[in-house]
């Protein structure tokens, strides 16, 4: 009772602040996408009141965008799957072992994240060149995976540590193998963390464009993230175009998020039900 009333004051205030802080930029993006290049520089009330037009959208919606969208889906999904395949076991392994090695491993993961992405382009270009992975979606997926695995492992570890070890031990008492314990006991409990990590990996690799621009050598293979970067040209930035494209390229993510959020949310309440 007290709880509802008290949190009834602060929490909504925080939510309100967040709504403004994150809603205003979205509104601004949509508004700009409906302006002409000149209207972008309107001052005063002209910023909000103007005659909208959808030319920025019609200009950018064409067949090549669909192809780029498909490419984005392939890259993001592939990276997500590959990262989970190697990072989920690694996160569990590092959560359940102690000693010198895991500590060093953790430190190494942090250090690896500090290598600037730009510094990895040239070495990876050489590796992919000699392995025939240039101009190849698989190459970009591998590069993205290498980029995001340390991050994923670090993120997953606390979720695995949150699984009560008593459960794993009772599983062992029942005679289950380590692998079975991992698969049937630990993973279900940690699925919150795995789902969260998967979402983040998907979103990050969806937006990654440095590897995409450098490792794809022919046109038509660029994913959406690179298409967005194209709006920044040597001769100027098409502001309405940039914002329109941002809206267009984000719709698939939005759709995905809406679709999986229900699953995420249901998964959460499932565990909470007595």
């Amino acid at each position, binding site marked *: 009772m007290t*709880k509802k009333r*008290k949190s009834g004051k*602060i929490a909504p205030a925080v*939510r309100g602040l*967040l709504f403004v802080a*994150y*809603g*205003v*930029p979205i509104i*601004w*993006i949509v508004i700009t996408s409906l302006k002409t290049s000149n209207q972008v520089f309107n*001052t*005063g009330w002209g910023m909000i009141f103007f005659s909208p037009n959808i030319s920025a959208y019609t200009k950018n919606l064409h067949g090549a965008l669909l192809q780029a969208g498909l490419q984005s889906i392939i890259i993001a999904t592939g990276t997500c799957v590959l990262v989970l395949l190697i990072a989920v*076991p690694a996160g*569990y*392994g590092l959560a359940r*072992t*102690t000693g010198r090695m*895991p*500590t060093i491993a953790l*430190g190494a993961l*942090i250090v*690896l*994240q*500090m*290598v*600037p992405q*730009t*510094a990895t382009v040239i070495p*990876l270009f050489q590796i992919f060149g000699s392995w025939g992975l240039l101009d190849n979606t698989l190459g970009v997926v591998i590069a993205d995976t*290498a980029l995001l*695995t*340390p*991050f994923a492992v*670090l*993120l997953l570890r*606390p979720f695995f*540590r949150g699984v009560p070890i*008593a459960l794993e*031990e009772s599983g*062992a008492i029942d005679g289950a193998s380590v692998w079975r314990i*991992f698969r049937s006991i630990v993973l279900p409990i940690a699925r*919150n*963390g795995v*789902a*969260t990590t998967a979402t*983040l990996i998907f979103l990050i690799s969806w*937006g990654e*464009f440095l590897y995409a621009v450098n490792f794809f050598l022919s046109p038509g293979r660029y994913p959406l993230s690179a298409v*967005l970067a194209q709006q920044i040209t040597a001769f100027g*930035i098409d502001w309405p175009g*940039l*914002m329109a494209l*941002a809206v267009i390229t*984000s719709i698939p*993510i939005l759709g995905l*998020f809406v679709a999986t*959020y229900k699953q995420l*949310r249901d998964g959460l*309440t499932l565990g909470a039900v007595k």
Partner: protein
Amino acid sequence: MPTLTSRTMKKVGRRDSSAPSAPRRRTRRQVRFVFVIPATLFIAIFSVYPLIQLLRMSVSDVTPATLGSSWNFVGFSNFSKGFAEGTLGTVLGNTLVFVGIVTVLGLVGGLAAAISLRGSARGSGLLLGLMVFIWALPPVVNGSVWKFLLGNTGLFNSILGISGTSPIGYLYNQHLALFSVAIVNSWAVVPFNALVFRAAILNIDPEIFEAAQLDGARPFQEIRYVIMAAVRPTTLVLTVLTVVYGFRSFDFIYVMTYGGPGTVTTTLPFLSYLEAFVRFDFGLGSATAVITVVLVIVLAMVYARSVRREEREL
């Protein structure tokens, strides 16, 4: 002021129960280390090799002309050149301020957001989705939006203009620019922290909350004793990730101020970019990157040590 009983505290504090028999546990732990192998192999090939190249470049003279052939070893002269040119001192200071702001605001904001969004009310889901959507937008979009919002004729200054104040140079005033960019960067990272914190908060056994309420705990105490204790491992990891993010962050500076005015908003990663991809002195750029890595190693050691301490608490 009723305090939480030891029963509730025990539930929160204890993550694992005491071990049955020690030797069996030790063997099992060795086995579990096998889980790490696939990731190790992959990282060894695709992440460690670029790191080694980075280290080699930082002690060599590498320009586009020499990139393809063998590199001349120059010892630490790339590092001393950076200090001699004078910018490195300012840049270091800028970086520490920048990382400090992003870390503090990012974590506090993320936790506050997670706590206020932990209910499964419809509005919370929508707001969280909105925040993650923003987070997922490319920095070039987010940075451009804020560049306009903070401009002389942007939203903030227009509102100020109503009361007759002259515009504030958020992005070009040499005293404000760094803070402005850091705050925008924090804003961009809060949704990520909120999402992860929220997942951790939702993992807390609801019975603990009930027990706390039975003890008569008020919301603030709930937050302090239940939530914050339970998310401690997550806080630890998010601190590391946010600090790393701050030390890597480059896109927002690139879009909003390009390190300016002058060098006011130039941080270590931006300086490294300028040296490597504008001046095309790969050796110098690598040296700056290595300096950043060394700074983070210090942090990594602190994290690793607290991880070991946390395990000894079992």
